[in-house]
């Protein structure tokens, strides 16, 4: 008993050590966001900042609130559109039996693996002809396309947990597939769908490369604003730290919500928790 208690303490100490490795860099940036330019880099370091110093946040937000709004519109928009496309498809792939079913599923999955950078120029040219460059709409479309495969696969893995008997019983009662989808599958997989939505939200929120290609002025997202702060002109680190903190809030909060399903999501539903 005693040895096992000691063992636990040692293991716990290690676990805490690892936790610190993964949290301290972020905390240092968080603390930095409450310091002025000189304090951020003063040596020896100022370990604990004055948390009432909010100037970095106010300056940064006043410069960039429109980009934050853009980010939110694009993120929420693409999350909704992704779900509208993906859920029925995932349902179909799970419950319909047709030729080439597996092939289709694999094909959808494989588009997820294609590197976005390889699609950027053709999409740029396409949107140029549609006169949609520098529009939030274009970003929503592209993010949706890149998220659909993920959403289809993960939602399918949740739909598969619905007992087949339930579906068959409704079929016999004469319910249409659409009814079954809306009244049985979706309500029974609420938790799973929330997981998918959160992942898609975070992916879109974090996206940089495509936004870098497609936005000029009006449609710039928050990550674009942040990256512009560090491109070779003078870096105002206080503002950058504040922006980083704001950008990090949604992923952190949502990860805490997700924790149970995170493995499942990151492995595209292959691993159940």
């Amino acid at each position, binding site marked *: 008993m005693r040895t096992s208690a000691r063992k636990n303490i040692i293991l716990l100490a290690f676990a805490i050590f690892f936790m610190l490795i993964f949290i301290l860099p972020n905390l240092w940036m968080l603390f930095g966001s409450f310091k002025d330019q000189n304090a951020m880099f003063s040596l020896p370091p100022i370990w604990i900042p004055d948390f009432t110093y909010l100037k970095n946040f106010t300056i940064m937000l006043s410069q960039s609130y429109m980009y934050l709004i853009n980010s939110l519109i694009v993120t929420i928009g693409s999350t909704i559109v992704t779900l509208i496309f993906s859920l029925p498809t995932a349902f179909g792939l799970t419950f319909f039996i047709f030729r080439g079913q597996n092939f289709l599923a694999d094909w959808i999955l494989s588009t997820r693996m294609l590197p976005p950078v390889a699609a950027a120029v053709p999409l740029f040219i396409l949107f*140029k002809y549609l006169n949609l*460059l*520098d529009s939030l709409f274009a970003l929503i479309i592209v993010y949706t396309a890149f998220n659909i495969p993920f959403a289809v696969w993960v939602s399918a893995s949740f739909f598969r947990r619905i007992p087949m008997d339930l579906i068959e019983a409704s079929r016999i009662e004469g319910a249409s597939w659409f009814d079954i989808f809306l009244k049985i599958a979706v309500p029974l997989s609420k938790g799973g769908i929330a997981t998918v939505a959160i992942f898609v939200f975070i992916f879109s929120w974090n996206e940089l490369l495509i936004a870098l290609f497609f936005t*000029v*002025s*009006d449609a710039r997202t928050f990550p674009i604003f942040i*990256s*512009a702060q*560090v*491109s*070779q*002109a*003078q*870096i105002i680190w206080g503002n950058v730290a504040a922006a980083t903190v704001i950008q990090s809030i949604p992923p952190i909060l949502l990860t805490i919500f997700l924790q149970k399903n995170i493995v499942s999501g990151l492995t595209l539903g292959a691993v159940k928790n």
Partner: protein
Amino acid sequence: MLKKILLICSLSLLPMNSLLAVDWSKELGDHSGVDLKVQSIMDPYIDAVKEISPTFTSVTGASVTVEGFGYDGLHEKQIVACSQGDSSYDVLFVDGIWIGEFVEGDCIAPVEDLWTEEGTDMSVIAWDDYISSFAGQAIWDGKKQCLPFGGYWHMLHYRTDLFEAEGLEPPETFDDVLAAAKLFKDNPKYPELEGGYAMNMARGSAAGQQFYEWIYSAGGKPWESNYPGSPDAYADQRGLYNSAESVAFIEWMQEMINYMPPGVEQYAWDERAKAFTQGKVAMINNWSVRTPLFNDPEISKVIGKFDVALFPHAEGASSVPPVGGWIACVNKHSKNIDAAWDYLKWFASPEVHREWVLTGAPPSRHSAMNDPQINAEQPWTPVLYESSLRAWQELRPRHALTFEVIETLGIEVNKALTGEASAQDAMDAANKKIDRLLKSEGYID
């Protein structure tokens, strides 16, 4: 009597051209309701632009929004957008060396056409008042494309207190620079110094431009027909990036690195200037746009402790101070071309230019260089003026491949400086790649 004295005083303070003060309400149209968007580099002058722009609003009714970007980011966004016919920005502040690319991308409504069409009073433009090494940067395909406004020239900046303490004269030759840098590096007398000298060495534009800035003063030339005074710099563009002079210069930089602060391999414009303002290096070569910052009490620790000198040169060569800077262009696809042109006319005019310079921006016209008040506020102006007269306008290429050529070169130079390749190998590779690039577009056979 008193009136007369006052009049004489005020006259002598005014530069020649602005003696004929422009009646702006007559010269500029009414643009009420227009929101003019200006796309600019985030160089120190941007605050001055924001500061004086409300005057334009009060005359024309058009509001002015100035948005700043980093160097590479600006290039990327500007050219991509305008070549696709984007009208987000009306006025583009463009680096003079990008002009070829912007003309090729069909981005610019040439100012020459605009003023011919409008029948503009040419004394408002005062083209001859521009210093020619800089004004040439706004001309491409034989046409005046944009209005120059922010001319920069390089000067050597050095710490007078340190040089006096050591009984040194400001360095003139590369050898002087090296000897002084060596003296100050790790010198126990000056513990706050991290290095003797700082240069732009970061991969890409920073290191690539550094090469062009130095090569003429190093006694070399970047390609066959480009040398100070060349009648047609683009006649023969075969590269000389691996010539004996080029390689010797890179090797000189490799030696200089030993006397620079740690991390200098990542320095670009801002880091270089910061090292000087923070009192960490004894010397830098620097664009004149940042010189006023060194007297800004908010950021500088070297106020009153520095002076400027002509750009250094190799033994047996002469000083060719680098020239560069920003020209204001009208976006061809803008929906507010008239307002944009009025803004250009107003902003680049000798009178407003003077006002802008007095807000802490770099003088770029003869009238500004000779202005007593500017000379009083920016005491380095005489050296700057001399530098500007000695400079060579084709310092860096200005054709459509410029950015790519400079970036390619900057990668190879940076490789040599970080020890990834020898000077000879790096410059051989640079020469080969640049030649191939120029061949692909038919610039050379």
